[in-house]
């Protein structure tokens, strides 16, 4: 059986910054109020009236194919699964925070009580059961899509091709699996 190569496309033209994905992620992963694996940033407003523009930018883990966090982890707690998802094994993490330091997207969070680092794992357990990640399922505006990047017939592959979706800061060379359709 072919291994999936999970990826995500976020359509910024559709996102209205309702933060429902943030809250859904917190509920799904039982996170405290001050811990957000999926933040939503407000870009702008930019320009001068009447030519003013603004959009929202949700920021989950980018699940980089060339992930500095995985390369730098001294214990192997940060791992890349065969399907491309980057996860943190909480049993192996020593809380050195080096992964937080090298992540250019600042997606990792230190859990003070447990003394370990955690982050978005693309709800891999839900994916294994045939469900979509919680943020994708929650988004009422259909701004988020998850699917197999290697399948040319998948919705995400089609969106990347048709809407010229591209990752955030590709010049950093981390090869993220999360693509954005910019407005």
């Amino acid at each position: 059986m072919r291994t999936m190569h999970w990826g995500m496309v976020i359509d910024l033209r559709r996102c209205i910054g309702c933060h429902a994905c943030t809250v859904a992620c917190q509920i799904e992963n039982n996170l405290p109020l001050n811990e957000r694996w999926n933040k939503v940033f407000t870009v702008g407003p930019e320009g001068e009236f009447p030519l003013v523009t603004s959009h929202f930018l949700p920021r989950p883990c980018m699940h980089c194919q060339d992930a500095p966090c995985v390369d730098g982890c001294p214990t192997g707690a940060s791992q890349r699964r065969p399907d491309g998802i980057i996860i943190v094994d909480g049993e192996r993490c020593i809380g050195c925070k080096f992964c937080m330091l090298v992540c250019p997207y600042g997606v990792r969070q230190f859990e003070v009580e447990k003394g370990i680092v955690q982050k978005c794992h693309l709800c891999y357990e839900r994916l294994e059961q045939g469900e979509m990640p919680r943020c994708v399922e929650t988004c009422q505006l259909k701004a988020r899509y998850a699917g197999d990047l290697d399948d040319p017939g998948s919705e995400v592959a089609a969106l990347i091709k048709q809407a010229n979706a591209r990752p955030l800061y590709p010049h950093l060379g981390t090869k993220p699996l999360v693509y954005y359709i910019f407005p």
Partner: protein
Amino acid sequence: MEDKQAIWGGLAAGYFFCAAFGAMVFAVIAFLDIITSPLAGEVSGTGSFLGLAAAGLGGLLLLAELGNKKRFLLVFSRMQSIMTKGALFLSCFIVLAAIYTSFWFDIFPWAGENAGRRIIGFLGIIFAVALVIYPGLELGEARGRSFWNGSALVPLWLAAALTSGLAGVILVAAVIGTSPAPTIAILDKILLSLLITQIILITAYILGMRQSAPEEARRSVAMLINGNLKNIFWWGIVICGHLIPCLLYFGGRSAGILAIKSLFVLVGEVCLRAAFLQVGVRVSLPGEDNEWMQDEEIAVLAARLEQAWQERAAWINGK
């Protein structure tokens, strides 16, 4: 947008300084021993013990920085990681420095065994240099923190470590009363040349980063020169670490002057590591500056909410 790098704080800066200082004090002592300098016998015991103690303290600071200290042995489990390599260098160095130091104390039966001591000293120098070089490579792995991606970071940290090592040895000599020795005069001149080299390296590094394309590198330089780290840069690194020690060269070579000069140099080296560590800010994501609420504010809000729920629960339960 980060206003300074806050993931690795004072403990990490302390570790970087202590490890580099300890390693280079040891390296200078072991080098003097290998070349059979007459000074070696006088400062070696105290000096190598100081190097060992500083590196050991650095190791403890590194341990304190960990979120989950009970699992610290796992740090050795992945050799591809630069952190694992660093931990290994530190451990090997501490073991070799401990064995080497034991040769200088008569309570051990092998004390005075010159050949064996010099072989251990030579191996210790190799690990000391590795221990000093790896932090520059480690910080260089942070692709989103361009201030640390300069190729001159490793030479700069090596020069800084050697400067602090020499200052440490001169300080030991001044304290135990062997500062009039000719070797100390030579070490003192090398220290001056290293201070000048360091001034050139720091200036070139900062100017290079100021001219570089990444926005965060220019932001880092601005923070250092006239931002929230300007005091540690101008007062700590420039004045205490370089200007005052250079001026003290006009004050002669008495033990007091040497000791004061060395202390100022060491203060400057601490500031250099603390400042360079804090100034490595991450690339700013679009809209990150407009975060509707900072994490600290959310934590306060969460605590208030929790308290309100507790009060409500107590009221409902009639307590």
